[in-house]
């Protein structure tokens, strides 16, 4: 592969890196607080839009098998040519996903940042770098690259969480996030080192070849390695025994960052989990499916039950997002080997992620709007929202419906595919627990609705949410409806993105 080819294949990553660097550089030139600083947001947004264009542009290059991305200079490195990433449909899906996350988060963050954040250029740059790390981890096919990109994403997230340095809760959330996250990644690294020792390679496909080859009696070793890797990824996704950091980090972080955290690292974690388990460890399917099924049940239930007691909407959404991760996990647990069926579990997982992206980011955009105006994200800040800003109230209503999974919303499509896969695989228990949990969740989502429609507000004057937020909320709402009413292209996208993984399995 020549350098030019390689650069073309890496265009999405390059675009994002360049945008972030330009933002950092211009921020250095433009004085803090000067008028031209508002262009930083525009530059970041334009970069994200270009990212979509570039991704679509290189889509045809992948071919059916996906392209390994490996770099070697003029000299021949012989057998040492190590593919680090892959440009396959799954990676492309997550590139698109990242671009959407970035656009929505950036749109929603404009006013919030202007009021509360000191170092704006660095803030936007960190968010863009976080997006870069998401794309890298979704594309990585080498343990080194996976560890590196996940750490990249984590470190960016820690820093963003603690970005409000004057705010106790922000720094406190960051400390907890850091302490738990760093421990988890150290454990995961140890697991990776065991996998490397067992197989002598870092390449995911190579690991599978060695393990399936049966030449080496190292099977015992894989179990501790598997558990350690699951611990690390479980932290990133905030699955239940490893979720303690999530509520604090989510509540403390600046709200746009919370929106990013609730979608970004989760999606990256799921991407890595899928790739790692399906590419490297398919031979141990029975083992990890059993573990993950248990985790899924506990995660859904605990997330939902604890959410019942929350009075802060940010924290409530944090627990809700833990529960949502549990639903998504069903998709991975219930993956069906026969690829021709309408739901392979995996495509359900991707659909759910996509639905969750629009729904959750939309909901957080509304929270940001309310917080910008009322100064807090407590439940009573939402009181009488219907009278004060009907647009926000109605869209929020839509997002909450989608979170519950009531048609005609995106959340319904996601749940349909995920639970459908579970029923198809005869995992009735999982589906039942999932549905019961969805019913429980109605209660706390209803608490928000009740405040919005029937709550008595102290201040009843209408307020304006500002153009950025209006666009973000509007786009998210339209997409939530689109995914339900015009679902076919989305389903096709998700199915095609996982076809390779499902086939390799």
């Amino acid at each position, binding site marked *: 592969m020549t350098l030019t080819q390689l650069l073309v294949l890496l265009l999405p990553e390059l675009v994002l890196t360049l945008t972030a660097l330009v933002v950092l550089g211009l921020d250095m030139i433009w004085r803090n607080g000067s008028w031209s600083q508002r262009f930083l947001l525009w530059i970041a947004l334009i970069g994200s839009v270009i990212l979509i264009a570039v991704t679509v542009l290189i889509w045809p290059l992948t071919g059916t098998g996906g392209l390994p991305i490996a770099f070697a200079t003029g000299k021949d490195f012989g057998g040492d040519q190590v593919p680090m990433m892959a440009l396959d449909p799954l990676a492309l899906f997550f590139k698109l996903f990242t671009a959407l996350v970035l656009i929505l988060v950036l749109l929603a963050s404009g006013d919030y940042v202007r009021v509360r954040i000191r170092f704006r250029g660095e803030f936007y740059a960190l968010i863009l770098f976080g997006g870069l790390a998401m794309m890298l981890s979704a594309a990585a096919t080498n343990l080194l690259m996976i560890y590196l990109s996940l750490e990249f994403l984590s470190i960016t997230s820690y820093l963003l969480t603690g970005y409000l340095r004057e705010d106790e809760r922000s720094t406190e959330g960051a400390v907890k996030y850091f*302490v738990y996250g760093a421990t988890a990644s150290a454990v995961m690294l140890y697991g990776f080192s065991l996998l490397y020792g067992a197989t002598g390679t870092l390449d995911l496909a190579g690991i599978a070849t060695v393990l399936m080859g049966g030449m080496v009696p190292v099977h015992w070793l894989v179990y501790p390695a598997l558990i350690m890797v699951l611990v690390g990824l479980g932290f990133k996704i905030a699955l239940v025994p490893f979720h303690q950091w999530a509520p604090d980090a989510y509540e403390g972080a600046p709200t746009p960052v919370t929106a990013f955290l609730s979608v970004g690292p989760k999606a990256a974690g799921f991407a890595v989990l899928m790739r790692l388990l399906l590419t490297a460890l398919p031979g141990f399917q029975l083992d990890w499916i059993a573990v993950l099924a248990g985790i899924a049940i506990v995660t859904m239930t605990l997330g939902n039950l604890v959410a019942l007691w929350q009075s802060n909407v940010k924290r409530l959404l944090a627990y809700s997002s833990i529960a949502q991760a549990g639903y998504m996990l069903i998709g991975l647990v219930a993956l069906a080997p026969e690829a021709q069926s309408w739901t392979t579990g995996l495509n359900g997982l991707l659909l759910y992620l996509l639905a969750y992206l629009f729904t959750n980011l939309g909901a957080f955009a509304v929270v940001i709007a309310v917080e910008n105006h009322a100064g807090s994200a407590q439940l009573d800040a939402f009181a009488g929202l219907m009278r004060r800003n009907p647009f926000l109230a109605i869209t929020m209503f839509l997002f909450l419906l989608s979170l519950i999974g009531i048609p005609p919303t995106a959340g319904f499509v996601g749940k349909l595919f995920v639970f459908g896969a579970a029923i198809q695989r005869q995992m009735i228990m999982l589906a039942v627990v999932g549905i019961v949990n969805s019913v429980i969740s109605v209660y706390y989502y209803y608490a928000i609705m009740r405040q919005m429609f029937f709550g008595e507000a102290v201040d009843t004057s209408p307020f304006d949410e500002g153009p950025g937020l209006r666009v973000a909320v509007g786009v998210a709402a339209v997409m939530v409806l689109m995914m339900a009413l015009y679902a076919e292209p989305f389903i096709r996208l998700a199915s095609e993105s996982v076809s390779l993984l499902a086939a390799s399995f």
Partner: protein
Amino acid sequence: MAIPLPWWLTVAAALFAIGLYGVLSRRNAIGVLLGIELMLNAANINLVAFWRYITPQALTGQVFAIFVIGIAAAEAAAGLAIIISAYRRRRTVVVDELDTMRW
């Protein structure tokens, strides 16, 4: 090589366990960070030992270890900045005293 591979792995496992104990038992965030560094080092010893005994002709393990050290530096810088920032606010870095938020 006079020392069989499992010896190295045992030492690394012991170091990992010690680090994990430090992480779980320390109250001070910087103390936790010290434990994390021990765990990372245990993983590194594993990587280098595996490189030496299993794939001595390729560079894989050594390069991974170099990357781990670099990442650890970035992590420590970010983590300590966060801890110092929290200390400025609260005058404590004891993890269980950071309890503004509950449940």
